[in-house]
């Protein structure tokens, strides 16, 4: 259930990219995977606790996002919409299989870290890593909100999201905003990846499901709406968990997809979208 907050964080990143430049990043989940592996190797090779790898991940994924935007996405944006949809599939397939090639498809976990174990709260066993991840996600989300509303760049991003043409007229450098938004969106996956690595299975194809769930969340919240993504993420987390209890756990994903379909039929613009 707490995973919903991680979903929120990931969805915020995805909806930011969507809102600013109308691109659906199918490789979002794979960026997360890269983040997870980065933390894994930082821990394995340099003994850096995943929690401290958060800033490193953020920076690395930010850079990676900007580069991918600059050299790949930007080219496709002038092309037909179909190509824009397909190109990130290509990146996704490339990244996940490259990871499989370099690091083998094996499942890995990080062993004991600084914040391991469980916390006994009146009989309920709370997993500390999951708790910390959830809290970390919320904190990061709040930081993102603050950034968007209170810094110059952040406000510029919001302006472009709302009305690209008007923003351009106002003298905002849309290209730069595109790069930065893609960077931020990717950085958020790095942050999530670092935190998830403390308790989640790490393997090259872990991104697929996360990516798909993120889309449903973003659509539920309304493409482009940061608050919507946040709320929808929590909602999906709750529904997924409930669904797992009520029905067979393997139906969890199907329920999330059904949620998307029903929402989009009744209220196409999602919870808060425009």
């Amino acid at each position, binding site marked *: 259930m707490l995973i919903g907050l991680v979903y929120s964080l990931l969805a915020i990143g995805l909806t930011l990219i969507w809102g600013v430049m109308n691109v659906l990043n199918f490789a979002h989940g794979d960026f997360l995977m890269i983040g997870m592996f980065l933390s894994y190797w930082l821990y394995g090779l340099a003994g850096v606790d995943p929690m401290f790898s958060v800033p490193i991940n953020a920076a690395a994924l930010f850079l990676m996002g900007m580069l991918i935007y600059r050299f790949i996405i930007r080219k496709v944006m002038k092309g037909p919409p179909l190509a824009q949809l*397909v190109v990130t599939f290509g990146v996704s397939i490339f990244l996940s299989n490259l990871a499989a090639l370099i690091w083998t498809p094996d499942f890995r976990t990080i062993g004991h870290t600084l914040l391991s174990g469980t916390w006994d709260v009146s009989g309920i066993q709370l997993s500390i890593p999951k708790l910390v991840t959830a809290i970390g996600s919320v904190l990061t989300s709040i930081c993102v909100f603050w950034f968007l509303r209170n810094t110059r760049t952040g406000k510029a991003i919001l302006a472009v999201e709302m009305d690209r043409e008007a923003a351009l007229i106002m003298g905002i450098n849309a290209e730069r905003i595109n790069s930065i938004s893609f960077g931020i969106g990717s950085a958020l996956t790095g942050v999530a990846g670092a935190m998830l690595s403390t308790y989640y299975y790490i393997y090259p194809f872990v991104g697929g499901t996360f990516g798909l769930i993120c889309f449903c969340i973003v659509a539920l919240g309304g*493409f482009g709406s940061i608050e919507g993504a946040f709320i929808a993420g929590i909602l999906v987390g709750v529904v997924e968990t409930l669904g797992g209890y009520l029905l067979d756990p393997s139906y969890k994903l199907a329920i999330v997809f059904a949620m998307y379909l029903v929402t989009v039929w009744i209220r*196409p613009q999602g919870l808060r979208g425009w």
Partner: protein
Amino acid sequence: MRDITGKQMVVTGAISTFLIVLPLVSSPFGQHVMILTFLFAMCGVAWNVMGGYAGMFSFGQAAFFGIGAYTSSFLLLTFHVSPWIGLAAGGIISSLLAAAIGYPCSNLRGHYFAIASIAFAEIVRIVFTNWQVVGAAEGLTIPMLKESLAHFMFHSSKLPYYYIILAFLLLAVAVCRWVASSKMGYYFRAIKESHEIAQVLGVDVVRYRLYAIMISAFLTSMAGTFYAQYILYIDPDSVMILPISVQIVLVAMLGGASTVLGPVIGACILVPLSEYSRAWLGYKGTGMDMIIYGTLITVISMYQPNGVWGAITTLIRRSK
């Protein structure tokens, strides 16, 4: 009947001869690659009817492919129904399901529609993975019957399969051609431009979108039945997964979406490439072939997003 020039006849004759003779001089693996090529070409042409022409970018065609495969196989296994009847049944079920899911999605366009199609296909896959009646995750094994056309089954050689899928492909191309030059085709393209303009022109957008989806689903489902009869084993992870849907879109996009023959060209490039690279590079499970595939997708989207067909026809026109 418009005049067919002598030149066109020669070209058609040459291509036909080539296609008929080609499998006779190829290895079984080569024949296998050709069969898969035509299979994906057929799916690509089917995709085009709703995607390239009507603008509904479906990333969920695998659902119809799988339902086609499962319907005919299930009917064969349980009720000993001929696969050819199963073919028709699968097509009808897929069309009806397509209409059922398409109707509430009537107002969805672009990315929203794409994700809806993925959501739908994934739900289908998950349901089939858990549905005991159709074998759940273990899938279905098609029973070995005596080799014959009526049984839609051949053991001694792949050749009959080759000619059958070629015939299916020609049928799909004929259907697409007919749609493209008829009222339906014009209306589809108006819908693709914008729902508003289509409505102003008197087009019942909801109804025509359903036509597009249903035709597309039927043809894709036929391909699925063929696959089942060819490979003789199906499970959700081999017939209903997202990568199949993506490959179908790619084939159409690479060749040239919204042209009749584009997907055929796209398949001729993409399928042999991925099959041969899998054979040569994928054997250790390294996934190198997939890395190449992913790179290819990315590069094509960046540099030739309108497809090869457009480039070829421009070349031909220029050389005249």
